[in-house]
C-alpha cells in the first residue's frame, strides 16, 4: 500500500489473506480515484518466483464485486515469494506488494462454540465454565497442514473490555471465576502457530448462570453454624456468670487466713486487742486449751512480773517447789529476776500479746495493777513455804490495816509469783492494787505445811490435826470483796480500811461482806454504809486472816446497789487430818472475776 500525498489516495491493495494456506485473496481499493472504481479499470498482476525466470501474470480470478483477486490452489504456492501489482490503464502501477503465503495466513474462527457448567463455588457466588469448539473447517488441521492456536475472550454483557485468555492450541478452555447472575459474552479467534496474524472473531456465545437451588442447600447450613456458635457462646457466658464464684475459686484460690485455735479471726481483723489479749491470756472465755500446751514451754504464767522494789524488799530467797511448778513439772525458779528473765526469753514466739510482752521488753515496770490483776487471773503458783510461814506467823498480829496490807501485799508479792492457778482477789489497794488471797485449799495446805515446819522447827509435837484445824479455822475466814462496778475504779481508803477492819474475827464461817459504793459519787449509796444487804454477816474475818475464800466464786446476783453477791465456795472439806494434800483438786466452777475497770486497766 502506498500513500502518496494528503489530498488524493491512489488505488491500492488493502489486504491479502489466506484462510487455509492453500488459497489466498487480495483486495484492492480505488482510493479517491472514483473514475477507476468501475470493474476492469484496475488490474492485478502477480509474480511468483518459483523459477529463475518469472513473469508477471494477471490475476487468475477476479471477483469485481468485491474488488478481489482470488488465487486458488493451482496458483498458490507456499513458501514462495509473491509480488502483486495494481495496475491501471497504460500499465500505470499504482501499488505493489510482496509476500509469502504462509505469512498472510489468517485462519477462520472456530465453529460450534458451546459451554458447560463445571462447578459452583461453595459460597455460591462464582462458578467455572468449560467452553469448547471445533476448529475452522477451512483449516486442514487434521492433516497437520495448519497448526492453529486459539484465543478466547470474554466480557460481561455491559462491559466494553474483553478479557483475553492465553493462546493455546486445544479446542477447549475453562473459564474460572464467573459470577452468578451476570451474563457473559464469549468469542474466539484463531491464528497460525508461530505466526502473528489472527483471524476474525467467531460469533459470540452467551453464558448466564442464575442463582440455583444449591444456594438454598447451603443457606441453612450457614444459618445453623452461625446460630450454633452463638448459642454455645451464650451458654458459656451464662455458665461463667452464674458460676462466677466457683471459677474465681478455681482461678484465684483465696489466701488462707491465719488461724489460731480458739481465736476468731475477726478479732484480728478488727484490731480488738483487748479481747485478744484477754483470750490469749486465758482469762474470761479464754483459751483453756492453751494453758496446758504452753505452760511447759511458756512459763509465762510465772511471768507475773513484780515491782522490782517490792521484790527487792521482799525475800530473795529462792522459792522452790511451788505447787504450780510441781504440778507443771517445771524447774523451780532460781530467783525472781532470773525467773522472770527465763520466762521472758521463752515467750518470744508467743503471739503478740501486750499483757505478756510488755512485762518482758518494756523497760518500765508494768503497771502494778496490771500485774496484780494478772495474778488474779492467771493461775498462780503455790505459795512458798517460807512466804506462807511468814504470813502465817504474822497473821495473828493485827497491827493495823495498813501494815497488814503492806504485809499482805508484801506477802502477796511473793505469793504472786507462786500463786496457784487461780487466785482470788481479796482486797483492792488504795493505790488500786488488788490483793490476792490464796486458794482455800492452798491456804489449808500452806498452813498445814507451815504448821509442820513449825513443828519441825520447834520440835514440838503438836497434833497436826489440831493445829491444822486451828489454822484451818483461821484460814477459813474468807472475805468476799464486792466491788461496785458503777463506783469508782478503786475504793477509797476508807472503804479499804473498812474492808480491812471488817474481817478481824477468825470466824470459821462463811461470810459475806459487801463494800458499799462510794458516797462521794452522790449516789443514793450515800447511806450505803448503813444500808447493808441482808447478806452481810455480822462477823467478818480479820483482814490478815483472809477468809479461805474459794478459789472461784460464782456471782449469785447483783443487788439493788449494783453489788455483786458471790456464792460462797463450796464447802471444802479436806480432812484436817489429811494435811498432806498438796495437790488438791480445785473447786468446781471457778470463776475469776474482774471488774470492767480493772479490765480496762489490764491492757497497758
Amino acid at each position, binding site marked *: 500500500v502506498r500513500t502518496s500525498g494528503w489530498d488524493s489516495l491512489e488505488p491500492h491493495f488493502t489486504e491479502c489473506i489466506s484462510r487455509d494456506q492453500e488459497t489466498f485473496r487480495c483486495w484492492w481499493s480505488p482510493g479517491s480515484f472514483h473514475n477507476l472504481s468501475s470493474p476492469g479499470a484496475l488490474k492485478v498482476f502477480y509474480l511468483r518466483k*518459483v523459477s529463475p525466470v518469472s513473469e508477471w501474470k494477471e490475476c487468475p480470478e477476479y471477483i469485481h464485486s468485491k474488488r478481489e483477486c482470488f488465487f486458488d490452489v493451482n496458483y498458490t504456492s*507456499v*513458501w514462495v515469494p509473491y509480488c502483486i501489482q495494481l495496475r491501471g490503464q497504460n500499465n500505470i502501477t499504482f501499488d505493489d506488494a*510482496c509476500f*509469502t503465503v504462509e505469512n*498472510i495466513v489468517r485462519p477462520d474462527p472456530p465453529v460450534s462454540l458451546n459451554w458447560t457448567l463445571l462447578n459452583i463455588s461453595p459460597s455460591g457466588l462464582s462458578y467455572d465454565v468449560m467452553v469448547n469448539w471445533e476448529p475452522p473447517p477451512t483449516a486442514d488441521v487434521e*492433516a497437520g497442514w495448519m497448526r492453529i492456536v486459539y484465543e478466547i475472550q470474554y466480557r460481561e454483557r455491559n462491559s466494553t473490555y474483553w478479557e483475553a485468555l492465553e493462546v493455546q492450541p486445544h479446542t477447549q478452555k475453562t473459564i474460572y471465576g464467573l459470577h452468578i447472575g451476570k451474563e457473559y459474552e464469549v468469542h474466539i479467534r484463531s491464528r497460525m502457530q*508461530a505466526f502473528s496474524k489472527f483471524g476474525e472473531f467467531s460469533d459470540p456465545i452467551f453464558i448466564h448462570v442464575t442463582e440455583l437451588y444449591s444456594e438454598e442447600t447451603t443457606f441453612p447450613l450457614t444459618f445453623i453454624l452461625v446460630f450454633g456458635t452463638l448459642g454455645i457462646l451464650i451458654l458459656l457466658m451464662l455458665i461463667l456468670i452464674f458460676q462466677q464464684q466457683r471459677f474465681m475459686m478455681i482461678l484465684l484460690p483465696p489466701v488462707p487466713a491465719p488461724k489460731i485455735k480458739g481465736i476468731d479471726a475477726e478479732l484480728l481483723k478488727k484490731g480488738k486487742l483487748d479481747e485478744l489479749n484477754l483470750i490469749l491470756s486465758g482469762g474470761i472465755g479464754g483459751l483453756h486449751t492453751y494453758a496446758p500446751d504452753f505452760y511447759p514451754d511458756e512459763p509465762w504464767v510465772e511471768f507475773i512480773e513484780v515491782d522490782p522494789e517490792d521484790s527487792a524488799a521482799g525475800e530473795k530467797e529462792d522459792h522452790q517447789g511451788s505447787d504450780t511448778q510441781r504440778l507443771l513439772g517445771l524447774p523451780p525458779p532460781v530467783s525472781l529476776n532470773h525467773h522472770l528473765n527465763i520466762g521472758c526469753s521463752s515467750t518470744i514466739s508467743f503471739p503478740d500479746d501486750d499483757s505478756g510482752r510488755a512485762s518482758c521488753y518494756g523497760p518500765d515496770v508494768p503497771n502494778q495493777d496490771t500485774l496484780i490483776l494478772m495474778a488474779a487471773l492467771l493461775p498462780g503458783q503455790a505459795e512458798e513455804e517460807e512466804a506462807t510461814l511468814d504470813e502465817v506467823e504474822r497473821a495473828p498480829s493485827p497491827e493495823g490495816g495498813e501494815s497488814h496490807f503492806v504485809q499482805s501485799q508484801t506477802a502477796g508479792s511473793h505469793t504472786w509469783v507462786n500463786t496457784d492457778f487461780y487466785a482470788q482477789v481479796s482486797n483492792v489497794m488504795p493505790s488500786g492494787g488488788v490483793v490476792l488471797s490464796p486458794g482455800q485449799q492452798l491456804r489449808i495446805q500452806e498452813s498445814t505445811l507451815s504448821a509442820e515446819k513449825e513443828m519441825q522447827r520447834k520440835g514440838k509435837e503438836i497434833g497436826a490435826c489440831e493445829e491444822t484445824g486451828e489454822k484451818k479455822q483461821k484460814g477459813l475466814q474468807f472475805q468476799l470483796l464486792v466491788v461496785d462496778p458503777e463506783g469508782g475504779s478503786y475504793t477509797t481508803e476508807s472503804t479499804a480500811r473498812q474492808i480491812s477492819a471488817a474481817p478481824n474475827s477468825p470466824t470459821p464461817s462463811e461470810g459475806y461482806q459487801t463494800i458499799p459504793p462510794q458516797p462521794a459519787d452522790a449516789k443514793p449509796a450515800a447511806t450505803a454504809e448503813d444500808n447493808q444487804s441482808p447478806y452481810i454477816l455480822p462477823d467478818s474475818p480479820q483482814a490478815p486472816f483472809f477468809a479461805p475464800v474459794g478459789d472461784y466464786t460464782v456471782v449469785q446476783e447483783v443487788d439493788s446497789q449494783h453489788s455483786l453477791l458471790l456464792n460462797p465456795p463450796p464447802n471444802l472439806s479436806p480432812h484436817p487430818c489429811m494435811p498432806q494434800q498438796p495437790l488438791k483438786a480445785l473447786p468446781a466452777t471457778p470463776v475469776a472475776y474482774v471488774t470492767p475497770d480493772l479490765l480496762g486497766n489490764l491492757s497497758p
Partner: protein
Amino acid sequence: MLGYIRSVPAVWRVLVCLVFCRNLTSIGAAPICTNAQTGCQALSLANLFDRVIQHSARMHGISNDLHSEFEQYFLPSKNQIGRVSRNCHTSTILTPNGKENAQRMAREELTEVILKLLMAWRDPLWRFHQGMAHNHDFNNFSSNKALEMSDMVHELRKGVEKVADKMQMLGIISNSVSSQVSPEALLPSDSAEWHLMRDYDLLYCFRRDSNKVQNYLKILKCRIVPEHGC
C-alpha cells in the same frame, strides 16, 4: 566469559538432549533400540514422529521469535503484506510448495528433502550464533535463542535420521536416505560488512525453512502413520 559461553552450548546441548530424550524415554523409559537389541523397548514410529514434530515446532517458534526481534531492532515495520523476497541458500533444494504437492511426493523424497534442509542449516546457524555472541548489540536472550536454534537443528536432524532408519527398518521406504548436501546449498564464506543484513535474511530464510520442515513432517506422518483425517 568465554569459558562460560563455551559451556553454554554444552549446557544447552544437555538441555536439548534432555528435552528430546525425555520425549523419547517418556514412553518406554528405555533407550531407543537399534537392530532390535534384546532388553530394550522399541518405540513406535508414531511416537518418533510425534517427538520430531514437537521438536520442529519448537524450532520454528524460536526462529519466529528471533526474526521478530530482528525486525524490531533493525528494520522499521513496513507494509502488512511483506517484504521483498530474498534469495536463500536453500532455494536450490526442491521442495514441495503446497499441500498436494507434498502429499503427492514420495515418502523417500520427502524425507530426503527434510534431511537436506536440516543439513543445510547446520553450519549457517552455528556461524550466526557465533556472530551474535561476539556482537554486543544483541542481548543475551537473542544469543541464547540463536544457540538453542542451532542445537535444535542438529538434534532435529538426528531425530529425522532416526525416523528414516525406522522407516527403512519397517520397510516403508525402500532405499536409504542420503543426507548429503549439494555443494551449492552451502553458503559462501561471509564477509564482515554483510553480517547484519545477512543475519536478518538468514533468520528470514530459516524461519521459512523450519516451517517447511514442520509441515513436511506432519504430512509425512499423516501419510505413513494413518490417522483420522489424513
